[in-house]
């Protein structure tokens, strides 16, 4: 029981440290700030799914006349 309490205190401490290190940040300019922001941004997976579906509906381009003629 005592060991469990100690463990949870330790976990809390680690979580607190992580929060603090995430909380205070300094950026030398807008570029750096925006790079950080961009790195935190993820593309929702739905976009790839939608794109796959949309791409599947696009017919292959027609063969060019010389392709039909010469089998190219």
């Amino acid at each position, binding site marked *: 029981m005592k060991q469990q309490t100690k463990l949870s205190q330790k976990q809390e401490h680690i979580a607190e440290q992580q929060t603090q290190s995430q909380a205070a940040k300094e950026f030398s300019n807008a570029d750096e*700030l*925006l790079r950080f922001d961009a790195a935190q941004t993820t593309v929702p997976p739905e976009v790839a799914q939608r794109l796959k579906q949309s791409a599947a509906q696009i017919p292959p381009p027609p063969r060019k006349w010389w392709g039909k003629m010469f089998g190219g």
Partner: protein
Amino acid sequence: MQAGWETAEFASLYAEHSRPIFYLALRFLGDPQKAEDATHDVFLKAFRRLDQFRGEASIRTWLYRIAINHCQNLCQSWHNRNIHAGSDDTVFEDAVARTDSPLRVLETKELGQRIQKTLDALSDEYRLLLLLVADEELSYEEIAALVGQSSDAVRGKLHRARKAFAARFEKTV
């Protein structure tokens, strides 16, 4: 033969470039749903035109060109439907007190909202330049080509855009 989604080529192109394109759309349009739609549309256009890519520019630059045109068209049609006062960047450029001081962020939780508020307050031109220069893969020359200006003009405008951003960002606390 047209390169399809199922080909490794297009899938890896999406995997490599979708984040910067989505980020540009997100912060330029300021709406996550619109950014998702725009990213989908940009890559679908790229998919359709992949055989037209001539390799004169990098594929990233080519995708950015499609994305910028797409986002600007969306903004244009939005502006046409709404009365828009426009942004006066000079207000923020003149108001800046400590240009070279770092941007301090105490709480990263709401950072995205603060950045969005700041970018929304800038002109489309400054917003676009800042978003492009944030991509380390782009050179000043490539940015200049994308916005149709000289490298020197881009450098000068970026200097002013950074000042305007810093001044506005401080006010979002």
